[in-house]
Each structure stands twice: as C-alpha cells, then as structure tokens.
C-alpha cells in the first residue's frame, strides 16, 4: 500500500519525460557511481566537491526537462486529451456569456444621444446605469483580479485561489452596497424614443433585447420562429430567446459551481478529519454520512420548494440544498485518501519535523488526496446543473430569472402546440454543458489513473 504512490510517481516521471530519458543511458540504475561524468546529467552532478557519485543514478531527464509538480502534470495530461479540450472550450463560451451577458444581450443601449423634453440633447449610457451588483462583481473579478493573479507568479496556486475568493467576497459585498440600479425598468422607452425621433444616434448590444423584455410595444413579437431579428425566436411572452439563453448561462454555471463547492468543502472537511483521526470520529462521521445518504435528494428538494414561497432567493436555496445533500461522495473519497496518506512516510516525516496539524492536513495531505475529489466534483457539477434544470422544468425553480430548464418547460406553450426552437436551444445547451463536464471528468480520471497512463504510454 505504501509503495503505490511511489510507483505512480515513478510512472508519472517516466511517462512525462519519455523523450529525454530514451536518449539518456540505457539503464540509469546500473550506471550509478560507475562512470561519474559519463553524460550530460552526470557531468552536471560531478561539479560538486564530495560524495556526489550517487548523483549518477539521477534520471537524465531530471536536469533536462522543465520542472513541474505532480498536480501540474495531472492538469497538463488532462487537457492534453481532445475530449477535455472540447469540454473546456464549451465551458469557456458559457463562462464568457455568464460574465459578459449584459453586454451581449440587453435592451439598454451602450451609449445614446437623446433629446429631452426641453430640447437639449445629452449622451448617456443606460446599460452602465442598469448594471446590477452581480454584473459589476463578475466584471471586476474577470477584468482586474483574475489577470492580476495570473501575472502574480510567485504565489502558490492555493494562495492565489484564496486571494480570488477574498476579492470575490469584498467586491461582491461592496457592489451590493454601492451599485443600485433603478428599481423600475421600462424596456420599451428606448424603442419608443426612437420611434418619436428623439434619438440622434444609438449604440446597441449585438442582441438588443433584455431577457425579461416582453416587448409590450410589439404585440406581434410573441412566439416568433428564429429570424434575423430574433436569432433563436421568441417566447410566448415575447421575450427574445437568444438573450434568455445567454443570461441563463450565468445561473447554470453558478448553480453547478456553488452547489458543488458547498458539497466539496463539507465533504473534504468531514472526510479529511474522519480519515486522519479515524477511531471514534470516523465512526460518528460515517454514521452521519450514512444518514445523509439515506435522504432522497430530489424529494427533499421538492418538499422544501413546495413549502417555500417563490422569490429571488430560490436559486440560493436550491444551491444550498443540493450542496448539503451531495457531500457524502466527496467525504468518502477524501476519507479513503486520508486513511491511505496518513500512513505514508512523508506525513510521518512532516509530523516529525514539528508541523502543526492544520498545515499537515491542508498543505501536505489535501493536495495529495484531492485528485479523486476533483474527478467526482466535475461530475457533480453536471448533476447539479441537471437537477436545477429539472426543478425549473417542473416549475418549482426560478420564476423571473431565465434558466434553461424553465425555458424548456415553455416548449409546450400555453397555446398547446410544440414550440421547436424553445425545446431545441435550451435542451442543446443543457446537453452540451453536462457533456462537457463529463468529458473533463473522464479526462481527469484517466490522467490520475496510473493504469490508463501505462496503456496510453
């Protein structure tokens, strides 16, 4: 059992460095100490003053190929696979939609010059005026914080993630306080002003419709098939489907990530403590875990949703419930990994060097045991998105906010007929997103599995 990780790593090292290793000495082990300074790697070694003959059995690629950690290797192997690249590409598109949604699809013009009643003309940006706290937060994080963290190379991945999380909280809370878009929004007024000839010039987003713009001034816009004006058609209420699709991607991503994030944090914490301490903590933890596993997630969600009045907090409630009921798998994985890791020499060595418990658990054990959790989390994101779509489809989820599942439920419209475009686009989006997460999960699983690696190599 203790030899397994060493084997894995050796595999990883050999696998990753096949090129240079093949050109090195035939067998690095037999060459040890016999001919110091025989090749490039050993020549580098023998510069030392004394006792470095054993440097000869250092693998030749060690000095030649770029230095890379185990996790970095896993990430590289994962995204070296076509499936993961395709999945990541689609998620990238969804992420762009999620962050820049208001800029891509909105009834508010970017800029316009409009004459007021008294005849004076003024340039204003209704879109910026109508940005909500969430829009501003995402924008600041994506355009300012994220590039900064990518440039800040000296910090470790964990520290950078921590700073990102902190920045998200700070920016989010301050945006909540300071960004106050107008409470009542009249989408029709831009089109009305244009018809009245008050607008001198206007710069509109590519899709000039907000997701909840019901186009009351255009009664003929209800239930339209895709056309050049409405790229994906309109709903029964006259809302532009393309706009709703783009704005719904934010909810899909948020539900997937936040629900799975809650589940992973709970699961890793409990599983890690259970695995490290074992004994009665493990016993109690496992019983708690079994109790939670016995709760049928869907029916719990249905029951709670049925009791609670609809509102904008519905989304967060769903995230929390999905998170609170799906942590058991992650806890099992983490517990198993920690049970294995705590017997490993480097954990004993870490304790022997006097490291505090938190450091051992978080810095030394977690990075080594997180890989199976990540695999399972990427499938978990997919299932959380499906669950939200399912609830919204049943009409138990969001009401005003656009969501793919809620759109799907409108495919069989009030008119009774089947509206193909409303079925096709949200269905396709759900399918592609879930598929992408599964592709990434599969690649990640293959990348950390030494057996598939051997086959591939």
């Amino acid at each position: 059992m203790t030899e397994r990780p060493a084997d894995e790593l050796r595999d990883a090292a050999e696998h990753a460095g096949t090129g240079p290793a093949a050109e090195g000495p035939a067998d690095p082990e037999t060459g040890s100490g016999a001919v110091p300074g025989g090749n490039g790697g050993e020549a580098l070694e023998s510069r030392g003053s004394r006792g470095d003959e054993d440097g000869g059995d250092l693998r030749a690629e060690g000095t030649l190929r770029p230095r890379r950690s185990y996790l970095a290797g896993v990430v590289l192997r994962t995204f070296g696979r076509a499936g993961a690249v395709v999945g990541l590409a689609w998620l990238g598109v969804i992420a762009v939609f999620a962050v820049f949604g208001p800029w891509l699809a909105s009834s508010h013009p970017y800029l316009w010059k409009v004459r007021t009643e008294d005849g004076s003309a003024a340039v204003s940006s209704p879109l910026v005026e109508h940005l909500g706290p969430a829009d501003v937060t995402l924008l600041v994080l994506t355009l300012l914080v994220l590039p900064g963290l990518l440039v800040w190379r000296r910090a470790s991945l964990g520290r950078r993630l921590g700073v990102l999380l902190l920045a998200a909280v700070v920016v989010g809370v301050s945006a909540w306080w300071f960004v106050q878009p107008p409470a009542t929004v009249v989408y029709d007024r831009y089109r009305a002003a244009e018809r009245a000839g008050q607008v001198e010039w206007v710069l509109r987003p590519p899709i000039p419709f907000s997701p909840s713009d019901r186009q009351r001034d255009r009664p003929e816009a209800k239930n339209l098939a895709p056309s050049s004006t409405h790229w994906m058609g309109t709903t029964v209420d006259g809302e532009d489907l393309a706009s709703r699709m783009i704005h719904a991607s934010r909810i899909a991503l948020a539900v997937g990530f936040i629900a799975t994030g809650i589940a992973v944090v709970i699961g890793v914490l409990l599983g890690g403590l259970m695995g490290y301490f074992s004994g009665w903590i493990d016993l109690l933890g496992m019983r708690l875990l079994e109790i939670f596993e016995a709760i049928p997630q869907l029916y719990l969600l249905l029951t709670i949703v049925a009791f609670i009045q609809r509102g904008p907090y519905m989304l967060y409630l769903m995230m929390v419930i999905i998170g609170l009921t799906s942590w058991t798998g992650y806890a099992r994985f983490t517990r198993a990994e920690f049970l294995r890791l705590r017997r490993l020499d480097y954990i004993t060595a870490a304790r022997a060097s006097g490291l505090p418990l938190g450091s051992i658990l978080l810095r030394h054990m977690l990075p080594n045991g997180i890989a199976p959790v990540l695999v399972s989390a990427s499938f978990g994101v997919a299932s959380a998105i499906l669950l939200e779509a399912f609830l919204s489809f049943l009409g138990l989820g969001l009401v005003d906010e656009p969501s793919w599942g809620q759109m799907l439920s409108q495919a069989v419209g009030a008119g009774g007929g089947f509206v193909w475009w409303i079925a096709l686009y949200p269905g396709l989006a759900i399918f592609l997103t879930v598929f992408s997460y599964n592709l990434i999960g599969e690649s990640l699983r293959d990348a950390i599995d030494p057996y598939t690696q051997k086959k591939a190599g």
Partner: protein
Amino acid sequence: MHQPLLQIEDLSVSFPGAGGRRTQAVDGVNLSVYPGQTVAVVGESGSGKSVSAMSILQLIPTPPGRYDRGRIQWRGGQADGKAAAQTGPGGGDAGRDGGGGAVDLLGRSEAEMRAVRGNQIAMIFQEPMTSLNPVYTIGMQIMEAVRLHRPVRRAEAEAIATAALRDVGIADPSSRMKEYPHQLSGGMRQRVMIAMALACQPELLLADEPTTALDVTIQAQILELLRQLQREKGMAMLLITHDLGVVAENADVVAVMFAGRVVELANVRELFQQPMHPYTRGLLKSMPVLGRRVDRLDTVMDGATIPEDFPAGYRVLPHDPTLPPPTRYGGPDAALHEISPQHWVLCTAENDPARATATPPRLAYLRDPASAASTS
C-alpha cells in the same frame, strides 16, 4: 556533561492484537543517549526498534497504539529554555513531573511536542522514496521546516536551506531547490531528508534505518556523511538498524533489542568481542562470513519470532545447544543486569546471585577521537 541527553526509562508501548489481547511492541525499554554519542539499536523486524524511536517524538498513532508505562527524559536536569519559552506555563508543568527540572516527553501535549520535533530532536526515515512530499519542491519542504522553528525571513530561510543542501554534498544546491522529489534518485532524496533534519540543528538525530533502502555504495556514502555531520555539529544520534556491519562502523554504544526488550547493552567493542546474551550470540553467528562455504547459513533461532506466539512467561528462546536452558535468560522476571562493567544483559536474577538487583543502565561511553578516526 555526564547528564544523558535522552533517557528512556521503562518504556512500554502496546498495540491491539488478535483476540482482543494487546501486543507489547515495546516492553520496558531502558536506554540513554549522551551528547555527541551514537547509540545503535539493532534487532530484527518487529523487535520494537522503530516503535521506541517513534515514541520519543510521540509519533505513534495513539488510538491503536498506547503508551503503557515509562518516561522519556529529555535533557535531564537542564533547563528546557527553548521549549518553555514557546509553550508558556504548560512547559513548566511538564518540567515538574520529571523531578529536578527534567522533562518527560511522554507527558507533553501535542503543542509542546511540536517545539521539540524537528527543532531539538529530528528524525530521518527508512524510505527516501516516500519520505518527501511529491507535490512540493525540495526547497519548499526544507524552507518550511526552517521557518517553522526559526524566526527568519523567506530569503534567509532560502539561504539556510541552500547551505544545508550543500552540507550534505548536493551539487548545485540552488537549482536543486526548485526540483520535485521524483526528479531525484534515492541517494539524493536521503541526502535531502538529512539536510531537512539538520537544517534546524537538532541536538539529537533519530535515524530509523537510514540506509536500508539504498544500494551498498550509496549506503556507505550516507553513513559517512552522517558521521561527518555529527562530528561537525556535535550532535547525538540514535541509529536504528538491522545491519551489524553498520553498527560496528558507526556506533559507540549498542543496544540489542528483541521482542520489545533490550536484551543486551554494551559499548560496541565489548559487544562484538564478548556477546553475552544468547540472542546476541545467535545474531552475531548468523552473519555470513565472506569466503566460508556453508550448506546452510546459521539462523538466530528457530520458531517463534512473534511475541504473541511465545509460551507464557518466556521472552527469549534462543536456539543454541551449547547454552544452558533458556529459562535462565528469559521469563517475565528477567531484567537488565550489569554482568561485567558497562555491560548489561537481560536475564533472571538466578543467573548471577551476586547481582540480584537489576541496575538501570547508565552507559556514558563517549567516542574517543582516535577510534572515531580509525573507523571512518
């Protein structure tokens, strides 16, 4: 200087065994280490060598394992300034129970142990392949240990780590710092482990079979390195091994362990020239001699090697027909007796009526420079 640095008294550690009984992994071990001294603990697998060493740092996982009896005095009699300053009033309490200000390591809390681990007592392990964390560079791992125990900045820690790597004979240490453990060979990794252990300049190094996993040429280099570093830094070492060749070359004092007990304790010359206990004799006899042709190699003993399998009341059952019946050497009433000056053997009192009272071993043999030079 004639105070032992570390003194293990009557240490007993047990683990749950088959059928609800507890297996005594370590059963009443007495051992002392003086400053600058190398004490070798030899014995076969399962004799309690590693458990004794791990107990010193309280590294035995205590839900399965249990410290039944005993005390481990650290720096007996001396003020424990470093630890007391860090642990506050708790350190004072721990200091009182030993009497005369000595500190019992077993009585310390986890927080108090952390001040000792790595800082005053460091440990290196058998498997260099698995003793380093695969996800961090070796530089990060050494610096983490340094910054934990010393109030230094990042740059200073980096300098200390680089110096430590250079000390253990690693060429181009500043570029090695950025490498991951899988990029290093076994010998290099063990050097890194030693560098990590010595970076905080401990007073005692626990070396748990440091060369077992390495091939023979590297073994010799690592041992030579340890000897040299020990001389330079004036550090004491508890060397755990099952290799008698390593013992003969490196140790000042040898403790032979079997079935959780120290069966014989003497300085290295005395032990190799006049082994007293049947187990020690068997051990020495079982070493194959180069050039001598034999059909079968000698074994230490037949049969029982697992403590649970011993007949009731017997601890040692050596197989040596020339010796008197085993009852005289084993049994629950056997204790360490000073058979000849500075030479303790585990036996019952009837063996030597003149010394009916067992004497706790206090062996203050210090390596004299001449012999140290000749062995290396």
